[in-house]
């Protein structure tokens, strides 16, 4: 069990660093979704299913949608 948690935490932290380092905003958005997914798994490990469901619905769904719509409005949608 600890090995699984360790792998998920490492993937999550690497994705968080990637969010800050990617030049293309679309790729940063995808990495943000990976962070939300890993966080949702960690919330289940800490015995909080309600919070995990909320984070999965909001982090991976609504937050990515908000960013995508705003990026389209700002003209940063195309890969440079």
């Amino acid at each position: 069990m600890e090995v699984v948690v360790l792998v998920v935490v490492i993937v999550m932290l690497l994705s968080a660093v990637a969010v800050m380092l990617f030049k293309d905003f679309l790729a940063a958005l995808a990495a943000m979704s990976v962070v939300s997914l890993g966080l949702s798994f960690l919330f289940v490990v800490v015995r909080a299913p309600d919070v995990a469901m909320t984070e999965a619905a909001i982090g991976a769904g609504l937050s990515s949608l908000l960013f995508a719509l705003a990026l389209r409005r700002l003209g940063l949608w195309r890969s440079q």
Partner: protein
Amino acid sequence: MDILDTNMILYSAAFGLMLIGIGGIVISNHLIRIIFGIALLEAGANLLLLLSTYHEGASAPIIVNGNMPAMMADPVPQALVLTAIVIGVGILALALSLAIRVQRAYGTLDMREVRLKLEQEISDEAGIGMPSSSDKPADIRKLPFNSVIQQEGGS
């Protein structure tokens, strides 16, 4: 083994996310990257809040099929984090709307240029010159006692 203690791994994850979020906010130049950093910081803070009452072997605070387990996790921080996640999404929506507005007003999202234009606008409104460093050479900086120097040079 001590390194593989689940508790310590989870604490490092929470602190690591917060550090990466703060680092992103402080270092970046682009407004959208700052907003990404804010979202990461909130995620790390929510995880840290939930870790405060994590026991190995506790179960989720729900009764299933009528039998109540011996040790259950604390429901109060979970309710608070539920609220915090939804508020985080509200903050994100507001921040993105304001970013769209900033781009409409200043034409760019690079924070250095926006700060420069903001200072320029404020100085224009107040009618004074832009604040500049006092280390500039004397012939650029206007001296208050200009006439005294001219007299001394002339005589």
